[in-house]
């Protein structure tokens, strides 16, 4: 055994302290969300509410149209994810399995645009979307986000690892390109597709700046935009504010707990390109 600088015990203590600091804001959020108003501002702080006020959640969802925000977030997240998966599958297939004129140039141009920060595209895209009449509409929230260069590259790499012989065999059997892609490549690439979908779901659900500028009416707000407006509406009612924040955060935490293997592998892969 290698002699360690720190004993196992010390490592556990350090990691646990760090973990407590990471979890504290979440614990505090949930604790506050279940408190009666008089306990919220109690000093010293009350960690476990004397009576759990689950009513705070219904009160928060009634004092702002959180049902609508929730619905919008789900619609936008589901449709952008499905849209991105479709465009990504088709494009990654073209880049990995079809040889065509201009492939190298198109690929290089796309690679180059990845360097441009999204914030720079904000204003021209706002102008485009308003020229299309898409301000304050689902189209405006969804369409600009249904293709991603990063996802295309990720899937293209994955497609490369599928043996070329498979497609020859399929051709001999009279299988068309499209059928081959759909029935052979897509099922084989399932882990990569799940990773792409999860990163997209998390990104879409949490997106803020774009939905903030392309929505004007309450009816089209997504959860983060609605929540941000609610801070002004709720004023100093921290128990309601924390209940609303919990409703926004919880779905992604649950999703992450169930699917963390895929999320982490996707993030780790984004680092490997360096």
């Amino acid at each position: 055994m290698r002699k360690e600088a720190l004993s196992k015990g010390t490592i556990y203590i350090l990691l646990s302290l760090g973990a407590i600091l990471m979890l504290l804001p979440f614990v505090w959020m949930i604790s506050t969300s279940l408190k009666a108003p008089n306990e919220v501002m109690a000093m010293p702080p009350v960690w476990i509410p004397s009576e759990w006020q689950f009513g705070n959640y219904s009160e928060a969802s009634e004092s702002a149209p959180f049902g609508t925000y929730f619905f919008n977030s789900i619609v936008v997240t589901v449709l952008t994810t499905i849209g991105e998966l479709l465009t990504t599958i088709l494009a990654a297939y073209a880049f990995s399995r079809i040889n065509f004129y201009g492939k190298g140039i198109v690929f290089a141009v796309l690679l180059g645009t990845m360097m441009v920060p999204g914030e720079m595209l904000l204003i021209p895209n706002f102008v485009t979307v308003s020229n299309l009449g898409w301000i304050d509409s689902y189209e405006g929230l969804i369409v600009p986000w249904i293709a991603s260069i990063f996802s295309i590259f990720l899937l293209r790499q994955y497609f490369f690892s599928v043996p070329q012989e498979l497609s020859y065999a399929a051709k001999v059997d009279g299988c068309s390109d499209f059928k081959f892609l759909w029935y052979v490549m897509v099922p084989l690439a399932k882990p990569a597709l799940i990773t792409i979908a999860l990163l997209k779901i998390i990104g879409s659900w949490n997106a803020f700046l774009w939905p903030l500028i392309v929505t004007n009416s309450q009816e089209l707000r997504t959860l983060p935009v609605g929540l941000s407006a609610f801070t002004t509406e709720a004023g100093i009612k921290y128990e309601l504010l924390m209940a609303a924040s919990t409703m926004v955060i919880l779905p992604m935490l649950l999703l992450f707990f169930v699917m963390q293997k895929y999320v982490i592998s996707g993030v780790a892969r984004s680092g490997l390109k360096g």
Partner: protein
Amino acid sequence: MQKPTWKSTLKGYLYLLPALLILVVFSIYPIIKSFLMSFYTDYDFFSDTVNAYGLENFTKLFQDPNFITALKNTGIFVIGVVPLSIIISLAIAVLLNSKIKLSGFFRTIYFLPFVTSVVAVAIVWSWIFHSDYGLLNYILGLFGVDPIDWLTSPTYAMPALIILSIWKGLGFNIIIFLAGLQNIGNQYYLAAKVDGASAWNRFKSITLPLLSPTMFFVSIISIINAFKVFDEIFALFNGRPGPANSALTVVYYVYQKFYEEWEFGLATAAAFVLFLIIFLFTIIQLIVGKKFVHYN
């Protein structure tokens, strides 16, 4: 693969069409457009007509004390977040990598903030930072520290923003570092141990040099991300750039000029400056990154 033919070319572009259509309209065209827009000096958004072009936006930009403040604040934010975040996440990654049970469990916890909405966690932190009833001041009070006006004093607004950002981004760096650490072969450590090297020397002479490509990648990505900070500020200070503009950053400046003041030319010019800064770091990464490759 066969040589390209016109038939295969048609097929190729047919498969690319949906993705290309979206990317051309919403990624490639706006790059060109925003470059042009930064030279619009007289622009009517409602009719989408340009009456005059010029360099005026850029001269105006650098004469605007708010933009200078934004550049300065962004710089402070980058310096405040990046080194600390890298040191902490590297330390945690090394601990997580030291063959302990529960390593996966800890990794999950450290990663949690990464999957949550910035707006939601910033609101939670604004409650933690509350000067009278906030958790942070209470804990500091236990150590005899007087209550701090985290969100209302211009001195402490930036530190508050930095604390939130480090907490939020730690998980991402840890995952990347862990991937890098797991790529280092055990034989180096065995050899060093035979030679009687201490743990600190092993870290200094094996881990750090072999991890340098990862370290470099994490630094550049962190710097780029820090330059783009916006959501955190908007949510933490309730739709304002902090007290007395103390958390006004470049992207916040762009948002203000564009969305609140409808100064499209000035806003795109500011966004263009941001792009140049980020581009510079990307180029550095590409050039210096190449030199690191033979380390592997």
